[in-house]
């Protein structure tokens, strides 16, 4: 949904899903490579779905071919089930949406029993987003999840309020970030991705801290803290008062942060934030992301991720480039 180039003209914005199957080019032609590897795990392509926007995968299986995705990041899992916030939980804004779901989820145990078996059978990898209110609970959650087979990686969601420290958010405190990443890494049987909060002054600082504490990759960004008010009743639009902003409106800021983070660390970076089409995904990749995640767009256009898979293929084919050649290939003026 950003400016359209040649690319978008070929794949117009529409409600339809699952474009024509990609045909193998005739022998001798240039064959772009899209597979990526992060911390030893292979993903068939760089297009993933973001945590909290794709359920546990099965919900969208009727609408798109899950086997065409690189990975599915599941809704944040806490050690115990959580009930979440009272409604209203969401609100639409200009080119974005606010959400304060409150991390309603089935908990680690039911996830392993009820959700993982379905996910394990897919060609798309399963990335388990992990969430807790204390370092001990993060570790406990990971230890519970370690029992599961077929998890590609953990994605540590450190952008949530930490009750232990009186409302301070893990992801905006350098010390807490270091502590929780190091502890999680020690506990984790699978590679550890750390999902960074954008609500910080210096994203490069947090990227380096997470890297230093053992993160295998970084995913960013999570939502921006925002708010909306009903002027007729003079009450907040969301029961939680503040809420997380996502969607195309935040893309420019998310992209800048991915660019800065990718230059600050050596580990792979996964780009997230307002991605709604192939061109958006390519911007993040060119800025330095090795993979991207589609979030809010799943809600209004479930076919987005598949359209991006196809769009990236077309682009690489047209430009005669492998995906790896694109990552971080932004040409900047001499500065």
């Amino acid at each position: 949904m950003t400016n359209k180039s040649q690319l978008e003209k070929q794949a117009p914005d529409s409600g339809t899903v699952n474009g024509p199957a990609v045909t193998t080019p005739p022998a001798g032609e240039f064959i772009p490579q899209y597979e990526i590897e992060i911390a030893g795990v292979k993903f068939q392509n760089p297009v993933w779905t973001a945590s909290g926007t794709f359920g546990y995968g099965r919900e969208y299986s009727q609408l798109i071919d899950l086997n065409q995705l690189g990975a599915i990041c599941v809704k944040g899992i806490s050690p115990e089930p959580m009930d979440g916030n009272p409604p209203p939980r969401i609100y639409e804004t200009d080119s974005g949406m606010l959400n304060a779901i409150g991390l309603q989820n089935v908990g680690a145990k039911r996830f392993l029993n009820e959700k993982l078996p379905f996910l394990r059978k897919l060609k798309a990898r399963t990335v388990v987003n992990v969430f807790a209110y204390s370092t001990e609970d993060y570790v406990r959650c990971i230890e519970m999840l370690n029992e599961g087979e077929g998890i590609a990686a953990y994605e540590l969601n450190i952008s949530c309020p930490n009750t232990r420290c009186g409302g301070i958010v893990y992801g905006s405190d350098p010390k807490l970030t270091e502590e929780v990443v190091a502890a999680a890494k020690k506990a984790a049987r699978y590679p550890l991705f750390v999902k960074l909060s954008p609500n910080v002054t210096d994203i490069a600082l947090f990227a380096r801290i997470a890297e230093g504490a053992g993160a295998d990759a970084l995913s960013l960004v999570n939502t921006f803290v925002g708010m909306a008010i009903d002027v007729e009743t003079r009450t907040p639009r969301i029961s939680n008062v503040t809420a997380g902003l996502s969607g195309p409106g935040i893309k420019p800021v998310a992209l800048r942060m991915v660019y800065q983070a990718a230059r600050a660390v050596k580990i792979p970076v996964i780009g997230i934030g307002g991605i709604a089409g192939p061109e958006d995904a390519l911007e993040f990749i060119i800025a330095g992301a090795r993979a991207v995640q589609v979030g809010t767009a799943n809600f209004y256009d479930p076919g987005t991720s598949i359209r991006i898979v196809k769009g990236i293929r077309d682009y690489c084919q047209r430009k005669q480039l492998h995906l790896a050649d694109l990552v971080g290939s932004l040409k900047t003026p001499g500065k």
Partner: protein
Amino acid sequence: MAMFDETVSVIENRPLPGGHFLLSLDAPRQAPNVRPGQFAMVRALGRSDVLLRRPMSIFDVQAHGGGRAGSNRKESALRILQLLFKIVGRGTRVMADLKSGDKVGLLAPLGHGFFEEEYLPRAHESDEVLHVAGGIGIAALLLPAKQLAEARFKQRLFFGGRTKDDLVGINEFKPVVSAMLLATENGAMGYRGYVTRPLEDYLTKHTNKKFLLMACGPSAMLRATVELAKRFRHPCLVSMENRMGCGVGVCLGCSIRVQGSGHEAYQRVCTEGPVFWSDKIVWDAESSGLGIRD
């Protein structure tokens, strides 16, 4: 549960009084799969400012050429999906601009709906089914009423609105219900006042009868209806509304507070609903997410 996400064409977008529209969409894959009580998510294409789809009850499904869906609803000839909506904000304003031939994104049918398994047995226990609609809430009740009419149930519609322009869709109900009781706040049509007054009168007069109530409308009306159902001890189904992000159960944005605790404290309107037994809902504005229409 067969749902489809497709770009479909507008056949007609008929303006009705009071900022209402009857939108007919050409949806050959979706229309035949609709069950009473289900809804659709409609997307304005090609713009990102009105980002999310808008949930709309499926008002009616019809055969090609506008022929009414007869007794064999499942037949493949059904291909027109109708939505009845009212302009309340920018999403519905964009929908109002749709013209014949325009395209929209249609994700449908969605929701658990008035399952045959669940509500037919209870209807059989009753002497009459009472539909209670407030304003555009009427849109959720036509398909259930039609199915009950096919099964020869006795039905009655209580329908209230602010003004008489809010009483849309009456013509469609005429053939399916045996009686209609209308109410407007200014008395311009039917009773003067809230629709729950004639409902209360009727329930008071017929305390010996067994009713099944089905309600959809603004939350104040729903609450009053549910109060009456409770007082007179009749089962009551409510079709709930809430802001929706996805419509398919993944965003957890539409959850409302239900009886139960811990992980059971919330259910999704889009997946476990939109139709619930009224005693399942925690009827408290703060915790139920209601009030978005108040």
